């Protein structure tokens, strides 16, 4: 443990309003901490730059799921376990439920939050491709009020986001319109559990009369930000799935991503696996008789 607790302040204002007020009073000085699964690791390693922390753990306003007629609003303070255990999330947002299931082990799922995952903005984060595929919106809140932005625009660069000073994510909003889509998600990490992604994919597709009517493909681990493969989607949309399309999709995807070599893996590997996963998705989409949620965790099932 390489930090001195005496050097840090941590306050827990107890309500969302109090939290955003404090953030407004002293802009840029308070680092929000929810479940701590990212911040506390840095802290123990002596690498946490912030000295003042604001706990937003377990705030009731943030830790709930609202099921509305047209959308599901997931509070940013919901833990992965909350997502896994919520029936509507499980049934209607299988990409997200699957990602929650393979983020860390049970103890970390009980503390890690969807808001934390978004704000930490790791390009390899497990839930983020799902949110891109679902084209979620974010509700942001500050002392100035609330605003709603498309999640697609949220990440502007490596670990840079549209969150402005004094702002928190309040909720993630997802349309309830994906029941007739085939969903496919797969994570490739160094082991079957508790692994940071090398590549992860979340994809949705819909066939109409054998033609790809809509497709969304999002990847983590292949760019400075979680990425929607817009070019690849364009190449697929409106076409029938045949070997030529698989080849084109793979080729376009590999050209569209920007993976790197790092401590966990190589650019070449990530590119190849990304291509393979997209092909697997399209094969599943093609084979689908009727739309069925499909969740696969890499190599886990025996």
């Amino acid at each position: 443990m390489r930090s001195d607790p005496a050097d840090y302040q941590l306050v827990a204002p107890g309500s969302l309003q109090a939290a955003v007020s404090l953030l407004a009073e002293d802009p840029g000085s308070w680092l929000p901490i929810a479940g701590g699964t990212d911040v506390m690791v840095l802290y123990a390693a002596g690498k946490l730059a912030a000295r003042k922390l604001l706990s937003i753990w377990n705030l009731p306003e943030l830790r709930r799921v609202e099921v509305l007629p047209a959308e599901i609003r997931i509070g940013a303070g919901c833990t992965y376990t909350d997502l896994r255990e919520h029936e509507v999330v499980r049934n209607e947002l299988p990409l997200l439920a699957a990602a929650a299931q393979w983020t860390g082990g049970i103890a970390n799922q009980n503390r890690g939050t969807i808001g934390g995952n978004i704000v930490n903005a790791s390009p390899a984060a497990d839930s983020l491709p799902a949110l891109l595929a679902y084209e979620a919106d974010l509700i942001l809140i500050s002392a100035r009020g609330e605003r709603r932005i498309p999640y697609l625009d949220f990440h502007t660069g490596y670990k840079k986001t549209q969150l402005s000073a004094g702002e928190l994510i309040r909720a993630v909003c997802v349309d309830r319109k994906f029941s007739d889509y085939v969903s496919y998600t797969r994570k490739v990490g160094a082991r079957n559990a508790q692994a940071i992604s090398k590549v992860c994919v979340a994809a949705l597709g819909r066939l109409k009369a054998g033609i790809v009517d809509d497709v969304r493909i999002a990847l983590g681990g292949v760019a400075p930000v979680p990425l929607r493969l817009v070019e690849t989607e364009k190449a697929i949309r409106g076409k029938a799935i045949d070997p030529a399309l698989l080849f084109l999709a793979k080729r376009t995807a590999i050209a569209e991503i920007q993976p790197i070599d790092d401590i966990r893996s190589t650019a070449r590997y990530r590119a190849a696996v990304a291509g393979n996963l997209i092909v697997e998705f399209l094969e599943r989409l093609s084979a689908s008789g009727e739309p069925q949620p499909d969740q696969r965790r890499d190599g886990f099932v025996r």
Partner: protein
Amino acid sequence: MARDRIIGAPVPRKEGPEKVTGQAQYVDDMVLPNMLHGATVRSQIARGKIKNITFGPGVAWDEFVIVSAKDIPGANCVALIVDDQPCLASDFVNHPEEPILLLAHPDRHALPKAVAAVSVEYEPLPAIFTMQESERRSEIIWGADNTFKTYLVEKGDLDRVWEQAAFIVEGEYTTGAQEQLYIENNGMIAVFDPAQGITVWGSLQCPYYVHKALMKLCNLPEDRVRVVQMETGGAFGGKEEYPSMIAGHAALLAMKSGRPVKIVYDRAEDMAATTKRHPSRTRHRTALNKDGKILGGEIEFTIDGGAYATLSSVVLSRGTIHAGGPYYWPKVRIRAKAVATNAPPHGAFRGFGAPQSLFAMERQMDRIAQTIGISPVEIRRRNFFKAGQTTTTDQTVREPIDLDRLLDRALELSDYSAKKKRFAAQNEVLTKKKGMGIATFLHGAGFTGSGERYLSSLVAVEGCADGRVRVLVSSTEFGQGTKTVLSQIVAETLGLRYDDVDVAQADTLTVPNSGPTVASRTVMVVGKIVQSAALGIKQTLHAAGMLGDSYSPEEFRAACRNYVAGHGQFRSLARYEAPPGVFWDDEKYRGEAYAAFAWAVHIAEVSVDLITYSVSVDDFVALQEVGRVLHPVLAEGQITGGVAQAIGMTLYEKVIWQNGRMLNGQMTNYIMPTSADLPPIRVFFEELGNEHGAFGAKGIGELPMDGPAPAIINGAADALGIPFNSIPLLPEDVFEAVTSGTLQKEDEAQPTGGRR
């Protein structure tokens, strides 16, 4: 012969209840009054001269105890074999993380800042990081030629063999470093009293190694150094020699400050600074006749020892002796060497050289099979030892081991033939390729050659005032079951209840030196001496007329109580006796290397997913002949644990080096298998007995480490038809091999990484 009542029974683990209730005391659980915390300032460079040390601003230095090499009362070394490793660097550093200064302070939180505020100025020297660079000798970093040790084993005259050969098969195999990753990091507490000397409590395997090292470092006589082992949270060799270093550090701070000092590493420090398994490179050149029988061969075995000699000579020795596997070599030349690089010294890790050389041997056997066109099963059958034949070091294999039959049984247990057939068919169509891999091997238990003679282990068994019996050994418990099995041995030998016997805490003040807890020797070698000592207790009671020829446990206890009441301390000592007919020539490196070999066959069912290129093990059969199973649950636990660790070594655990420094020194990035990653590990035993081991047991702690790597890699090679010769084998490696080979289906556009 009466059936054993306690030996072979799954008696409860002696210290089990404390472990499952959180009561067991590990070193960090202990706090002493007035205690300081210690930390280590370490080298940031791989090699160089220390020019200057500055204590930066912002730290109240007068609150700290500071120790440097100058404060060492005795010799500045961590005494082991060659004594070349300093306890604290004084003028030169030879690896990243080498300890330079020690700091202590009452508030442990003050230490990281203080360590960061010490600036060391170096004059860097050229450093070397690979075995190849070391062999080139363009830079000499150790001794005259960067070589810690060499061995040459020669059996028969090799020269004609090449001409007679129908096949000559060559191969080169490499293994990487592996971190022991015990879940409890290294830690020590030291106290110094001018009258009593130094006492240390810690996480360790070998109290007397630490004792010897502290005597030399602190310049204290034998009776003014005391080492006490606390409950130790995993060791695997990683706490064989390293504890002498950290104990020395705690002791120096305790001596300087006059206060108790605790040093406990965090995970990052432990991974960065302590020992790892020796990386290796083995080159085989084997001559075979037309039927695939080995005529002879050359084996070149090289290990990377890091910056100081530590235990490299002994790791090299074991690797050398095991390099030929369980096969008959009419002629062989084995050239082995341990070389220096500027990395933290590598050290003991379960298997201790044998996993490295056996990996190579078993991969070579499959390569030979493929070259000649016979099956991996058949090539082994044709070359297995038979009783009466001699090993590479001319040791005659006397016991009636039938490796053919052992292999048969393993093949049946793993459903090998049916699966091979099925996989061959399904590999034509499925993206997940499957294969089967075999490893057949042996592991010698106990110290090599004359080692046990040299150790001359001493044990005591004591009759206590309450009539119970206590075992006094320096052999330590760290999960493998020392306390349980030694208690079983005594209870069975004396006809007592298991609960009548226990094992004293390993404290050099009270226990004799039964040798280090290494080399799979504790049950087999120490257990046998303990048995003798126990018999001595019984004989004394008989001779005193206090015990009849047959008696109940209650009668024994009564007699024991009587004896103690009348005579005071009641102790029976016994010393190691070398088995007759076991001779070893240290100079020629020939003879009986081990009193007993355990034999094993491991078979792995392997899948390779060509979407993710990851290799997984779907089923694992571990069949081993172990002399006698003294405790079925503990024995099985040793095998599954060893297999799991070896699966980690093979498929997951890669140490990423940069200039001698481990880059991935956190559990997030150094990947060991979780409960979700391991296959069913199915364990089976055979028992041939062992005249040299307690109740016929052979050592088994390290045996399971030798088989999984080659079995799995052989299986992966079988699945893909690609030879893999290096571990760890990561998905990225499989990807490179597959896409540069023949399995590439189409022209894949490669990314231009970094493009915006």
